[in-house]
């Protein structure tokens, strides 16, 4: 579905097979656990059994005495880094906290935190050596929720942490940061509002659901350099982080990104890489470390949970006049939950004349949280969209009409001050309003006895980012083109980047051969994250391809003995403007490269100053609730989203459906279920209940295309906003089915039955 006129493209909008498809389905693609090197040793990590404990001593002598053990490292081998900030593209990480997270020093701050690591001849020996390391702990009181951590008598997790509370420096606190955005006078506007809705919403921490565990293989060389093979969303940001925590120059580290078995934000931070480097340095041989699943759950970063309190005010006609929100995320043991992005997104879907956004980043004794697809937006938007639904009920209006009436559009100012460029929020809502799903009445009468049905809608936003990317193209004399890039391929980005180069070059997508290379083999490239890869690295590919076209025009001009300005290029064909019948195809010019000056290679470098407004998504969902068991079945689901220009529609649909399915799991089942000691009680994919194909219907997709003015082809990043609407859309459908507002996720059967009991009472 196209809502804005766009050029006719030859390659964009088609659905070629993916370049890496055969390697993936035939098992030839190389993942981290597949790495084999001469003399490879295997690493294991000893982790803290306590959520908060002072480490009195570590005795590794028995481990080192075990035959087959090559090396043991502890916090003493990796001193706490200086208080400097690491540029991880979108995220700024404090090197001090990163080094403390990677291995414990004076204190263990969460259960599962590495305390020591071993390299040995095989995994069994390494694990046995870990068991022989004696650690003397002094357990300390721990806190796991924002309420516990913010209580007046809470134990302080970091004695030296100085919080920043709206600019004020505050010592002796677990609140690392309190930020605030204020637009206009929300208190005065709220006081005059004719209709208000408010609520408190609670969220559990949730796993990104990537299947492949974190892993790292490292080889330390005697010249002080190191190579690291790893599963990462960003080889260059990983290199920055390793450099900071190990105090090595970036030029001494080569990071080789391997195929990735999912990330969704969970593979931005480094975990095992520095330990593998240190073990290799001590062992004098390469070391491979692969996490087990429990460690993935207990010691890597899930999306944060927390509490969101919100109030919305409107006039009788349904125009929003004010919004206030208090967002408190439990960051885990180190600062850095997603409060800034949550603040940006929480009110972005609507035109708020006045607003106040307070956000708190609170440290707790759990593993530090990380980005998870549109980080912070789903948690905060759960409150916004639940209350927009309540507002529609209160006003007695259609929920899509209310959203359309207040929808943000070009020229509107977000509460953080930024003015929207051309965006597709309205067009997405109109697509849902006009969809077959929304226009077809819900078959409530078709529900089985004891079942009730409801329909819900919700909108979500992710702003995306631009930043730095590099693409190198090398033209082959058979008319194909090698494309070298530095972004880990998540979700088909090799194909989506190659297609943009192919569009410029006027050749088939499969004639462009993309390869993802290491940090020594391509220019700086930021993360595969933030919905930036197809957008920003695609723009770099376009730039490189335009240089190829310019050079090949010059080559054609040499052959025709005319000026390069006398050569036209369109659709893969060069035309001599001075002799219109004289044409050469892209392949024909490439075949004559050696006769016209030699080979052609170009590099496109971009540093994009934003995303062009980001992407909006609106979802509509029908649910069927069994009131006896509390089981919820999603019986129909439609997702609409603005893709700007859909480069490969199948992959856009895949991102939309994937976001919807992850959101369905987040809404109905998924949570880190914690024991009283902070241990994760469901640290496996048998017990951490993600939806399968049996739990979800076909996700119907509506691609809306409102071209992005910041991209040469109008492309928008589309990887993340699709996970924002499902949770409130399902909560709103539950409200419609049962007349009950569920303000806490997940809306699991026990919670539903309790609410039904309370309703009956």
């Amino acid at each position, binding site marked *: 579905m196209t809502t804005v006129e766009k050029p006719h493209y030859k390659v964009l909008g088609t659905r070629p097979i993916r370049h890496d498809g055969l390697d993936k389905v035939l098992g030839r693609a190389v993942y981290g656990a597949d790495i084999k090197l001469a003399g490879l040793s295997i690493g294991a990590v000893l982790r803290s059994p306590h959520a908060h404990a002072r480490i009195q001593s570590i005795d590794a002598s028995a481990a080192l005495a075990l035959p087959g053990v090559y090396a043991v490292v502890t916090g003493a081998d990796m001193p706490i880094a200086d208080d400097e900030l690491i540029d991880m593209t979108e995220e700024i990480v404090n090197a001090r906290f990163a080094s403390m997270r990677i291995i414990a020093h004076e204190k263990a701050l969460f259960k599962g935190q590495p305390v020591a690591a071993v390299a040995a001849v095989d995994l069994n020996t390494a694990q046995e050596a870990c068991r022989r390391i004696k650690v003397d702990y002094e357990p300390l009181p721990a806190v796991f929720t924002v309420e516990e951590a913010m209580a007046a008598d809470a134990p302080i997790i970091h004695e030296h942490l100085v919080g*920043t509370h709206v600019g004020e420096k505050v010592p002796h606190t677990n609140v690392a940061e309190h930020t605030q955005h204020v637009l206009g006078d929300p208190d005065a506007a709220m006081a005059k509002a004719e209709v208000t809705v408010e609520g408190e919403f609670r969220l559990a921490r949730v796993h990104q659901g990537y299947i492949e565990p974190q892993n790292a293989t490292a080889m330390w060389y005697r010249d002080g350099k190191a190579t690291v093979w790893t599963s990462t969303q960003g080889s260059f940001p990983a290199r920055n982080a390793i450099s900071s925590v190990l105090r090595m120059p970036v030029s001494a580290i080569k990071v080789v990104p391997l195929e990735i078995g999912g990330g969704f934000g969970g593979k931005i931070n480094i975990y095992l890489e520095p330990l593998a480097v240190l073990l290799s340095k001590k062992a004098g041989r390469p070391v491979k470390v692969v996490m087990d699943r429990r460690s993935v759950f207990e010691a890597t970063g899930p999306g944060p949970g927390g509490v969101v309190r919100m109030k919305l005010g409107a006039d009788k006609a349904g125009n929003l006049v004010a919004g206030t929100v208090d967002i408190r995320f439990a960051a885990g043991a180190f600062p850095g939950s997603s409060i*800034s992005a949550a603040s940006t997104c929480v009110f972005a879907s609507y035109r708020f004349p006045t607003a106040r956004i307070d956000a708190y980043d609170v440290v707790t004794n759990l593993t530090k949280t990380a980005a998870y697809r549109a980080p912070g937006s789903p948690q905060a938007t759960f409150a916004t969209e639940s209350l927009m639904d309540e507002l529609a009920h209160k006003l007695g209006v259609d929920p899509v009409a209310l959203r359309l009436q207040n929808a943000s559009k070009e020229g509107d100012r977000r509460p953080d001050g930024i003015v929207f460029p051309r965006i597709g929020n309205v067009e997405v809502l109109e697509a849902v309003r006009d969809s077959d799903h929304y226009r077809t009445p819900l078959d409530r009468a078709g529900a089985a006895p004891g079942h009730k049905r409801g329909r819900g809608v919700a909108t979500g936003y992710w702003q995306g980012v631009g930043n730095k990317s590099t693409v190198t193209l090398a033209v082959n004399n058979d008319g194909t083109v090698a494309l070298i890039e530095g972004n880990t391929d998540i979700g088909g980005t090799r194909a989506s980047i190659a297609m943009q180069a192919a569009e410029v070059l006027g050749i088939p997508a499969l004639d462009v051969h993309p390869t993802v290379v290491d940090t020594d083999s391509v220019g700086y490239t930021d993360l595969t994250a933030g919905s930036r890869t197809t957008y920003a690295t695609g723009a770099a590919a376009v730039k490189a391809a335009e240089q190829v076209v310019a050079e090949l025009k010059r080559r054609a001009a040499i052959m025709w003995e005319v000026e390069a300005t006398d050569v036209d290029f369109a659709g893969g064909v060069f035309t001599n403007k001075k002799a219109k019948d004289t044409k050469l195809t892209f392949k024909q010019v490439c075949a004559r490269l050696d006769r016209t000056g030699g080979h052609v290679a170009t590099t496109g470098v971009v540093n994009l100053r934003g995303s062009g407004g980001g992407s909006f998504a609106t979802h509509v969902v029908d649910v069927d609730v069994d009131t006896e068991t509390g089981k919820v079945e999603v019986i129909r689901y439609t997702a609409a989203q603005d893709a700007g220009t859909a480069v490969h529609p199948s992959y856009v649909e895949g991102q939309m459906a994937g976001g919807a399915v992850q959101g369905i799991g987040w809404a109905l089942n998924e949570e880190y279920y914690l024991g009283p000691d902070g241990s994760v009680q469901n640290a496996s994919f048998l017990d951490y209940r993600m939806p399968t194909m049996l739990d979800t219907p076909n996700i119907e997709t509506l691609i809306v295309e409102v071209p992005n003015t910041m991209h040469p082809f109008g492309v928008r990043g589309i990887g993340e906003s699709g996970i924002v609407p499902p949770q409130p859309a399902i909560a709103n459908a539950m409200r419609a089915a049962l007349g009950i507002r569920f303000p806490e996720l997940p809306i699991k059967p026990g919670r539903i039955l309790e609410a039904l009991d309370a309703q009956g009472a």
Partner: protein
Amino acid sequence: MARVFLPVPLRALAGGASTAEAPGATLGALIATLEERYPGMAEALVDPADPGRVRLGMVAFVDSEQADLGLLTPIGPDAEVHFLPHIAGG
């Protein structure tokens, strides 16, 4: 003159004002003007380790687009300037 939207933590330096009109051909010149008027602004906005850019953890936006040339980013006569926290993506 450019219109600077002051982040909430810096408004106390400006007597509670949420915006300030200030001249300056570049972001650096603009911050220097703000510093003259509201002492403490430069310390709050400029990276002490690299005075050519804004503090890490903060992003400057000029006319709603990221300032990619640090303090050398040109400022138009009617520009809007924002200073916002970094955003993390997934």
